[in-house]
């Protein structure tokens, strides 16, 4: 039925997995930096973080991807020419443009999740830590972090699902992921439904894996009463 297109879909799925892995790490990084900035006492950092969440939560994903892909190449080329007029162009590979774009978008949601989770750590736990004579660093490592990640996990699972689905958007900048494979296969075979359904199955596979892992981690988190209420 998919005569000859299996391997293309497989490579497309590998691309999806790679983009997901890279953007997940970046998303966590952006989210943590954003949350730290929002919770800091520094008004400038707070403003920057607020601007970040407003812009990236409030604009369409596809727009961010296009702007980053086309805009970054033009901007970087202009900068490079300042130093070496012979430079014809500087390119940002579509993989990194796409990965950074979706990590920035989902990272803006994660910022709020991490901030909320950090504020959700029970004051009683912190007071208890202080009463036991723990230093602020010890409180952070042994009390705040373990409580925080348990609070953040369910919404964080949703962010991971958004992230994996957003990878389908990056075919627009020419990355050879599964949706792009489907489009190529359709123009040759003329079987749109078969080819699109395969894409659906691949994404369902990815999201099932994510959901199962989140469930597993939740179970691990619930083995003790940390954060229980």
């Amino acid at each position, binding site marked *: 039925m998919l005569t*000859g297109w299996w391997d293309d879909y497989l490579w497309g799925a590998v691309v999806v997995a790679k983009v997901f892995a890279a953007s997940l790490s970046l998303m966590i990084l952006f989210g943590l930096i954003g949350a730290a900035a929002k919770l800091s006492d520094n008004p400038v950092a707070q403003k920057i973080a607020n601007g970040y969440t407003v812009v990236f939560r409030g604009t369409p994903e596809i727009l961010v991807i296009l702007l980053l892909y086309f805009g970054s190449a033009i901007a970087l080329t202009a900068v490079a020419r300042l130093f070496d007029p012979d430079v014809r162009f500087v390119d940002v590979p579509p993989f990194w443009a796409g990965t950074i774009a979706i990590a920035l978008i989902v990272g803006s949601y994660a910022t709020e999740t991490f901030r909320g989770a950090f504020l959700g750590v029970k004051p009683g736990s912190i007071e208890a830590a202080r009463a036991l004579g723990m230093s602020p660093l010890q409180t952070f490592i042994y009390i705040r972090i373990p409580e925080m990640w348990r609070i953040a996990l369910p919404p964080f699972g949703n962010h991971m699902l958004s992230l994996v689905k957003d990878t389908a958007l990056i075919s627009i900048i020419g990355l050879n992921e599964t949706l792009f494979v489907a489009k190529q296969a359709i*123009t*040759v075979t003329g079987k749109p439904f078969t080819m699109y359904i395969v894409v659906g199955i691949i994404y369902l596979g990815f999201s099932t894996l994510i959901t199962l892992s989140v469930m597993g981690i939740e179970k691990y988190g619930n083995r003790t009463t940390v954060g229980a209420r």
Partner: protein
Amino acid sequence: MRFKSIQLMAIGAVAMCSAFNASAETLRVGMECTYAPFNYRTADGELAGYDVDVAKGVAKIIGADFEYVCQEWDGMIPALLANKFDLIIASMSITEKRMEKIDFSGPYRFSTGQIVGAKKTKVNLFDDAGNPIPGNFKGLKVGLERATTYASWFEDKLPGADVLLYDSSESLYLDLQNGRVDLIMTNPMKAHLKFLSKGDGAGFEFKGPVVDEEKYFGIGVGIGMRKGQEALKQRLNAALKQLINSGDLESYARKIFPFKLHKDVWGQ
């Protein structure tokens, strides 16, 4: 000192990303890769089609290495201008509108449009002189591809028409079959080969004549490039003429269609 560190960072950025300079004779070619039979990727991962044959023929004559980049139609000209590639060989018609932004070589294929609709849609859309009759388009939904010559033609000729815009020609055929649109306007060579001659297209037919008004469809399909590259343009034109005069261009067309897709006068 501060300037120096910025400079070092910039050099680092240039080195990290792939930087090319003018001396390399590698040209990157943008195409859709989803526009059979003109440019598409086969199940083996090979690029094929008329545009691809033309590109390979030109590359051989001008002695350059062509690298191919797959790019969606909507972003084709922006990507060329953003230096994502150097040439567009993607069945792009040479039109005045596009020439405001980019340059074109001479033509290597006709550019025409024709309306396709269900056989049971019994309306005369064109008068005997071949002009569309706006009144007869009333109540009919028309599907067009975004940012194409067909869309510009329709906008000007039939401003009141009920138009839906699509991202690819494949979606056009899908919605024509679904009945979401009653008519589509597209490339007749492609429509014949990929739709009307197949099972899915059995209930459909061409409506009205082939439209090739030069104002909208241009003199044909050419190779697009950024402006201000006169030397490159001359080399491409010479190569295309050589392909026409040697009969190679005709052989590319005859791999797919029982006729050639160019005029011999283009070779002079």
